[in-house]
């Protein structure tokens, strides 16, 4: 029977479901849609309570027009993700107010499923997924109650039924997840969302890194296949800055030019080894997977020196790992690095040498003079380096809140304030070395990371952002020198927190970082991060390539017949328990011993053509049989008597006798 009326119970669930479904969109919906939502929800609830009337056609038209105008002019661009979702949400709302009949109610619920799906365009974290599942459940509850009898008012049963439906569909969900071809960026609609992200940027000026130190956001996570290298070895190399304008460090003037000189494939190892002088020394290779959060930048982080990489990744001349496209969504890449290597040990090209020694002329005169003086006193670049590092160690303070610096920033830092964060040390160190004519450059990236013992992976956060230096020596090539290590070795050996004064520690990582000071909060954070990371690695990272690899591995090939066969057999496996359960429930009840005796007796008599009629009692049947077979009269009658005694007299003492009589009956 087709119900036309809207079940009240269902209406209630639709209110709940709609609220839950729209809530995650609140962050990007314009205010006027939220106001409309409140207005419509209030109106509809008043209608539900029977206090207000339903909207007149003219009011409906006005609402639609208003929403249309809002959508047309409320967004900076019409063809983008947000306005489209706004349109869907507006339709969802207006339909809620308009619906009168059951079929319209169903329509609202179906739009709800769509809106739930759009939620994943904005976030695909584990939390968002859990939330999506809850939304789905509520919509299902609304759907179930919409199909129930109007008189049924048992919300427990309704929720149970919906949950049951959902659980039953889980195997199918899994199956489709594994087998349905991944279509890639089907949703590649431009988003209005500002892509601003915290993280290492493509230039460095004083204060940049100390600001990053305040952020607890995750930059990337790393899983090592083999043993974790020592904390002090974990220099996640990002960009190389050779250009200094007196205040700001940046990559060599034309960044895009570097990209012309990028090795996109690994097979050219010979050329790399000879022309680029990147020479791995065997013995300390390590393989690891990095899952990089969206950085909106196109460089990647690696332990120097990467020797194997895959996909749309390449290595530039200055050993920066680059991606072909900006990282706009989470990216997982696998690398092999060797920790022992030589980089340009033989000679530096004249251009390279120029780049690694250029200085802005009219800046920091004191440093420039002193560097030359010290070089004369020490006699060698190595000696000069040791002296300046000694100076750092003796006089300098490592702090997140350094004093601000003026025009001659290096001069002021080195000879006056002597308090700073990593960028101050790296910057001043490189400037000093260059002043003495020693090739040096700034390298930025991350240092260290926190091991999540629950899943044995490394979490590298924004507060781990770091800047250090590389100095070139004849015969040795580029050597990593970390002046911060000279001031605050704890920063390198342990973590940022360990190296700071107690006043500074309070600033690290913002609120979440501070909450982590409590043991159990820390544990929860790690637990949550581990779940998220697993979710990322095993679910979200399952893209087309992984799917192909997985299916190939599983089925031994990717021919359509294999996939079809596997799909059908797995589906059958999923359905089998349900069918078996149904069959099991329909099985005939087990026969009691008496019933078995009766069956046996009847079978024996059947051979003589004597069949008990449905409405015939055993006594009557025995009498009839006795008339047919007078020889067995006594036996038949006795069996009937015993049966009556056992079944109707409920006297089990006769059971054994009945059994014997029936089995001894030979016809």
């Amino acid at each position, binding site marked *: 029977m087709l119900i036309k009326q809207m079940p009240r119970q269902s209406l209630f669930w639709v209110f709940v479901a709609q609220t839950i479904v729209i809530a995650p969109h609140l962050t990007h919906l314009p205010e006027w849609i939220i106001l409309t939502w409140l207005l419509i929800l209030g109106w509809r609830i008043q209608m539900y309570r029977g206090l207000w009337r339903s909207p007149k056609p003219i009011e409906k038209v006005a609402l639609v027009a208003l929403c249309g105008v809002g959508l047309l002019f409320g967004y900076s661009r019409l063809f983008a993700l947000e306005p489209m979702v706004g349109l869907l949400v507006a339709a969802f709302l207006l339909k809620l107010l308009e619906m009168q009949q059951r079929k319209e109610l169903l329509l609202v619920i179906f739009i709800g499923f769509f809106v739930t799906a759009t939620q994943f365009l904005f976030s695909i974290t584990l939390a968002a997924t859990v939330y999506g599942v809850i939304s789905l459940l509520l919509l299902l509850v609304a759907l179930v109650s919409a199909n129930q009898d109007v008189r049924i008012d048992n919300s427990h049963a309704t929720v149970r039924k919906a949950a049951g439906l959902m659980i039953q569909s889980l195997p199918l969900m899994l199956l489709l997840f594994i087998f349905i071809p991944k279509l890639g960026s089907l949703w590649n609609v431009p988003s209005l969302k500002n892509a601003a992200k915290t993280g290492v940027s493509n230039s460095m000026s004083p204060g940049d890194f100390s600001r990053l130190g305040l952020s607890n956001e995750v930059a990337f996570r790393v899983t090592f296949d083999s043993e974790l290298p020592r904390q002090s070895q974990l220099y996640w190399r990002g960009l190389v800055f050779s250009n200094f304008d007196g205040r700001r460090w940046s990559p060599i003037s034309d960044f895009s030019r570097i990209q012309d000189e990028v090795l996109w494939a690994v097979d050219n190892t010979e050329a790399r080894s000879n022309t680029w002088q990147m020479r791995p020394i065997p013995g300390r290779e390590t393989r690891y997977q990095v899952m990089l959060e969206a950085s909106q930048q196109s460089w990647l982080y690696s332990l120097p020196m990467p020797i194997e990489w895959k996909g749309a990744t390449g290595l530039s001349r200055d050993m920066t790992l680059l991606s072909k496209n900006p990282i706009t969504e989470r990216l997982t890449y696998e690398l092999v690095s060797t920790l022992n290597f030589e980089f340009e040990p033989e000679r530096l090209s004249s251009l390279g040498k120029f780049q690694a020694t250029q200085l802005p002329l009219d800046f920091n005169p004191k440093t420039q003079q002193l560097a030359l003086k010290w070089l004369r006193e020490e006699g060698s670049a190595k000696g000069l380096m040791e002296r300046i590092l000694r100076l750092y160690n003796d006089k300098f303070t490592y702090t997140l809140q350094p004093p601000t610096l003026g025009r001659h920033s290096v001069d002021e830092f080195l000879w006056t304030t002597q308090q700073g964060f990593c960028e101050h040390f790296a910057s001043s160190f490189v400037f000093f070395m260059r002043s003495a004519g020693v090739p040096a450059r700034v390298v930025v990236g991350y240092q260290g990371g926190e091991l999540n013992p629950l899943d044995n992976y490394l979490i590298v956060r924004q507060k781990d952002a770091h800047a250090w230096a590389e100095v070139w020596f004849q015969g040795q090539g580029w050597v990593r020198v970390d002046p911060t290590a000279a001031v605050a070795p704890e920063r390198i050996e342990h973590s940022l927190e360990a190296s700071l004064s107690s006043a500074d520690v309070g600033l690290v990582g913002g609120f979440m970082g501070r909450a982590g000071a409590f043991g159990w909060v820390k544990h929860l954070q790690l637990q949550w991060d581990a779940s998220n990371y697993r979710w990322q690695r095993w679910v979200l990272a399952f893209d087309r390539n992984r799917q192909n690899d997985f299916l190939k591995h599983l089925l031994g090939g990717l021919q359509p017949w294999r996939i079809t066969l596997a799909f059908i057999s797995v589906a059958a496996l999923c359905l089998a328990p349900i069918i078996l359960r149904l069959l099991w429930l329909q099985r005939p009840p087990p026969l009691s011993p008496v019933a078995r005796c009766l069956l046996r007796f009847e079978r024996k008599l059947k051979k003589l053509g004597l069949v008990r009629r449905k*409405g015939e009692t055993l006594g009557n049947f025995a009498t009839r049989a006795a008339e047919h077979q007078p020889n067995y009269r006594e036996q038949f009658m006795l069996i009937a008597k015993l049966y009556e005694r056992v079944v*109707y007299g*409920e006297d089990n003492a006769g059971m054994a006798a009945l059994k014997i009589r029936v089995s001894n009956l030979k016809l």
Partner: protein
Amino acid sequence: MQQLVTRLTAEISKVLLGKEPQIKLALACLFARGHLLIEDMPGMGKTTLAHALAAVFGLSYQRIQFTSDLLPADILGVSVFDRNSSQFEFHPGPIFSQVLLADEINRTTPKTQSALLEAMEEGQVTVEGETRQLPQPFFVIATQNPLSSSGTFPLPESQLDRFLMRVELGYPSPEAERALLLGDGSRTRLPQLKACITKDQLSIISMHAEQVKISAAVLDYLQRLIAYTRDCADFSMGISPRGALALLRTAKTWAVMHGRKHLLPEDIQSVLPAVVAHRVSEATGNSDQSGYALIDQLLNEVDVMS
């Protein structure tokens, strides 16, 4: 017990030849403290059976011949002004007896038929606002002609339901008929019938019937029967809970009459036509109230064992 039954049956058979099964059913009905309706064509011995039953039970009885102009007061009694005492004095009607023989009950109007309702269900009558108890035990043994005969008012279902049993007598067998034809008028022997059972024996039978063991298997069968009458499309009306209780009560009495301490499906099957036939009706609208075709179907279609 069986001897008692045999003796009673034999006694009644003196006046009603060859009707042992019906006599036994009628006995079961009275043992189960139920009212009995005897239905058949005129001249089949209905009244004789009723008389004989009353006689062998040794109970006081009154007989009313129901006619179309009979009024409730004729049954229940009436208050008459007594000139001497200057008061109204109640003159109890024939209903104030242990056995009421309601002869040809369906010849009277529904109004008068209904006068019996309270008496049959509760053992009391209310006349002129005063409730009066009837003597105990109180049985109504009614006879009626089949509905097809002219000048009858069919008993309403509510009234029929009050009768525990409806028995049909049918034509006598050739031998019985011959004996009847040869013998002297059996009616004349009616006054000679002796009371064979005391009031105490009657209560003992009731007590025994209470104690009859009802096994799960037989209850299952009973419930299957009831469910069949309610679910099967051929029935327009299934057995009511009152009907089901009546069936069980009669079957238990039947078991006691056969000297058993537990109930058998046969007991139910034996009393079922008499107890149930007047309580069910066919869906086809065939309103002769006989219901026997349905009962046959019921007994044949419902499995006894499972």
